[in-house]
């Protein structure tokens, strides 16, 4: 887009090479941070309204028009809250943990292709980078659980460690099955391939299975119900972030919703053709790509919310049995099936 070139040239004219690129990257980082902090807030509001409609309620409708400023008010409240903490807590790790989680969440956003030009960081190992980042997030949760010196938090953290490690597997494998068709990990390449038919259509049956496995594993990845063992209200109270308050708690809370956004946008990029409109109807208008990307992502986010407000919680051993005995074998069979299909060229191209 022209704007990025204009800023790019303006910066390079002002400063020497290296500082200009650093300033440009800092600028992009600040813009992304602002956009996704606000997007996180409105995701929280969306979750509360959708939960209310499922539950015969109305949801927040007092603050601002129809409750639009509700999460803004929550954020202000959290900022002004006192940062309490336990004395025996391991001070340094206790303070480090929230930044781990929020930074990993925000780093993962940078590589999503919202439109053709509007992509901050198009690296050629796109999906691999995404999976690596999402596994670092769990270290933050483990740190939080361990360092707040609270037995419930420790149990919550151990559960999250076990859960994320085992569900990394099926996230990675289901994405891998789709990479078989595209042949490259770079996100813009993947979207290129999807110009003639979304991957879910190209890979028809195995792609559908991979999508279902991905959605299950993705919900588990973000510690959301029915896998919310990490902060199981009725068992552990608030799980790993029991001892956090104020802005630190806000980081965890925001990170959880941004993770949900990330899992949904990975799915749209891989399975549903990021900014490509269905059957190429609105290719002409460049800016509409962002609308399509967000529309698809919001549909998937609604699906994840639907899971949360319907299903009870799994027990920790059933969670692992589901992964190792059901999702993993299915994934491997699906991988072989997709490989055969790509070999024999049975994929549907438009």
């Amino acid at each position, binding site marked *: 887009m022209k704007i990025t070139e204009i800023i790019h040239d303006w910066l390079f004219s002002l400063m020497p090479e290296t500082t200009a690129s650093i300033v440009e990257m800092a600028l992009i980082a600040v813009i992304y941070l602002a956009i996704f902090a606000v997007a996180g807030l409105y995701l929280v509001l969306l979750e509360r309204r959708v*939960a209310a409609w*499922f*539950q*015969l*309620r109305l949801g927040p409708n007092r603050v601002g028009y129809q409750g639009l400023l509700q999460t803004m008010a929550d954020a202000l409240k959290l900022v002004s809250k006192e940062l309490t903490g336990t004395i025996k807590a391991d001070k340094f790790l206790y303070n480090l943990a929230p930044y781990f989680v929020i930074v990993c969440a925000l780093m993962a956003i940078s590589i999503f292709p919202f439109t053709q030009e509007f992509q901050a960081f198009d690296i050629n190992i796109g999906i691999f980078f995404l999976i690596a980042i999402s596994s670092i997030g769990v270290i933050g949760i483990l740190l939080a659980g361990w360092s707040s010196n609270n*037995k*419930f938090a420790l*149990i919550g953290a151990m559960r999250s460690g076990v859960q994320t490690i085992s569900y990394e597997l099926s996230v990675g494998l289901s994405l891998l099955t789709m990479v078989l068709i595209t042949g490259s990990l770079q996100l813009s390449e993947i979207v290129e391939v999807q110009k003639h038919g979304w991957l879910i259509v190209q890979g028809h049956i195995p792609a559908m299975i991979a999508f279902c496995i991905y959605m299950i594993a993705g919900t588990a990845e973000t510690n959301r*119900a*029915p896998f*919310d*063992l990490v902060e*199981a*209200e*009725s*068992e*552990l*109270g608030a799980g790993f972030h029991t001892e956090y308050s104020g802005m630190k708690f806000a980081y965890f809370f925001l990170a959880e919703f941004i993770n949900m956004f990330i899992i949904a946008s990975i799915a749209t990029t891989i399975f549903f053709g990021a900014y490509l409109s269905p059957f190429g109807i609105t290719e002409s208008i460049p800016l509409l790509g962002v609308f399509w990307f967000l529309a698809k992502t919001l549909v998937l986010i609604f699906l994840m919310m639907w899971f*949360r*407000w*319907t*299903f*009870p*919680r*799994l*027990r*920790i*051993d*059933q969670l692992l049995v589901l992964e190792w005995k059901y999702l993993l074998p299915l994934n491997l069979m699906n991988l072989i099936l997709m490989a055969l299909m790509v070999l024999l060229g049975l994929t549907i191209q438009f």
Partner: protein
Amino acid sequence: MDTTTIKNNFKSEEYQINMGPQHPATHGVLRLLLTIDGEIIKRVEPDLGYIHRSIEKMCERDSYQQIVHLTDRMDYLSSHINNEAVCLTVENALQLEIPERVKVIRTILDELTRIASHTLWWGVMGMDVGALTTYFYGFRDRELINDIFEETCGARLTMNYNIPGGLMFDIHPNFVKRTKEFIAHFKTKLPEYDLLLTGNVIFQKRMKGIGILSKEDAISFGASGPVGRASGYSCDVRKHHPYSAFDKVNFNEVLKTEGDTFARYQVRILEMWESLSIIEQLIDNIPEGDFFAKTNTVIKLPEGEYYERVETARGELGVYIISTGTKNPYRMKFRSPGFSNLSLLNHIAVGGKIGDLVATMATLDLVIPDIDR
């Protein structure tokens, strides 16, 4: 295993954790001292008394009408049935002849209280196991019953509508209409409970095969109500010692034999259908007649011991009065169902995980003021 032994033989990972007295799964102020090894529970030791008001000591200085109002605060989810228990004991002691109309109205209100208590239990059960929406569906149905109570008795939860000798005032003109509306509404909503939670595979995996209670242990622990009936032990007081109009109604006692958490869940769901059919049989033929048998204002029970038992939503509530002929009882003892149901928690929860303990406790349906009295 207190902390000193843990320190010197450090290799054992067992540690003690406090579940309560302020904890979402304990539904009230019950503190469980859990000895756990990682996730496996080694020992559950309940610590009671946080809401102990010594109702039995208060009864020794109150008149019989005032005792009835105290029992509202014991098991607040079946307060009407508690009131009826004390009234029955006093009426049988005085050999009072209760008009037919009172008996039928009392039975209808009993069954409405049981459904209200079971819908609340179902909502909170879902929440404990993680499905948060069941709470609102359960409370929507419970609200209709609360409106019926509020219109007839004036209060939603602690009714105090029963007094020794009958009812405080007659039922409200549109009581019958509202109850029929409720029955029609609830008949469409109860199957939804099964669709949403009972059939769910995650729910069944969380509930089946944990917290198993055999029939002999159920009898020996004195488990009553749905907890006992889920282990095949037929302990329905409405069948064995019928009171009010229960002998004129035909309903079958729900019995399961597996005795695990899922069986207790199913017993309560099927019991709601039974209660609905009881109300349907009675709602149309409430006999005419006055609602109050004449008693003098200061009630003095003849000397002797009296024991009466009723089936509350949680189990068998027994009222044991020792009277020496004065206007307040010499000694009054309430045999509370929750107390015996809690005593078997350690027996069935050991070996399970924390998630199982929470699910098992949810199906025991404990109400802590009923335990602490």
